[in-house]
């Protein structure tokens, strides 16, 4: 099989390695393959809140709002508990989390406080 990989230059392999941070401290996360895959349902749910109708549905009946996104039971629990660290670990990006902070009336500093305490 070496014949084929001989085609790959050192320059290419270095560039390939460089696009994928691999030596980050454990307390710095990335939104990438793992997170994006894990978080797809949660992100879809929170992204929906850019629409006023979805925010109204959330306010009126949070359970019914959650039913739209194929969330797992655990994901629903994270949402019900406003477990920001859990949502983050579940793959929810901060950018859609902000929309969720809006409908739940959670100021960003409160989310930040929980994040810092996550250790």
């Amino acid at each position, binding site marked *: 099989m070496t014949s084929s990989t001989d085609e790959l230059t050192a320059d290419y392999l270095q560039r390939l390695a460089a696009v994928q941070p691999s030596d980050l401290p454990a307390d710095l996360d990335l939104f990438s*393959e793992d997170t994006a895959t894990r978080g797809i349902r949660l992100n879809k749910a929170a992204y929906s809140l850019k629409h006023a109708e979805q925010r109204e549905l959330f306010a009126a009946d949070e359970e019914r709002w959650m039913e739209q996104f194929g969330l797992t039971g655990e994901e629903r629990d994270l949402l019900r508990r406003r477990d920001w660290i859990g949502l983050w670990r579940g793959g929810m990006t901060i950018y859609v989390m902000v929309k969720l902070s809006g409908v739940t009336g959670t100021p960003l500093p409160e989310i930040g406080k929980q994040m810092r305490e996550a250790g």
Partner: protein
Amino acid sequence: MARVIGGIGASHAPSMEHVYDAGDDVRRNDEWEPLFGPFSEVSSWLAELRPDRLVVIYNDHMDEFFLNAYPTFALGVADSYPVADEGFGARPFPPLPGDAALGWHIARSLVADEFDPTICQELEVDHGVLSPLPMVDFAEGEGAWRIPIVPLAVNVILHPLPTPRRCWKLGQAVRRAILSYPEDLGVVVVGTGGLSHQLTGPRFGAVTPEWDQEFMRLLAEDPERLCDYTHEDLIKLGGTESVEVVNWLAMRGALGPEATAKVTAYYPHKIMGYGLQSYAVAA
């Protein structure tokens, strides 16, 4: 032919919107004067320079683009860009005027230069555009935008991200596109985002003023050095979300070698390193 006549690098953040929307009393109080003072200086400079167009290199924050189809680069080719609802209702600004013809020309030039943009006939712009732009281009009295824009969104969220070097080259390609546009227009290129901030995990709120200032110094004096930084480097230096500074690097690439920094202002406050920089370009 069109010309690049200046550049602006500016942080963007919802906090800037809240302060702007609170009016002059808040903008110019002790807390926010260090940010809004320099912005009004840049605004005056821009009013004198009278550019015909702004090319705004920014990033969306999942207000328009989502994970179903996340573009590496997305270019607007519309005559109007509505304000996105980011989850709190859209801010009450009129849609931003665009220049579809210039957008399409940039699209053709980028494709000719082997860039692979996603071409957007409809695009709602979020605080990546809307938090700095009113400070320099909104006539509050008239309730109107002054300068048509062409927005260009860069993926700084979903890894793999375009490398700093690729973003620098993108800026250079935007420059060629402007220079080859047959209409006689003066264009200012704007790059928004950063500087240091960290919005996830135990380092939430970390700001790194030394790196932020070094970044602006390098951008002014030796921008190609920044192409050697990886995203991993940038994340370690300025936080996960600070990689938005590649938008500044793209802006700088569009200015050509003769550009010089005029205003350079920096204000680390709460969870953000707010930066602002303007560039003059020799006529």
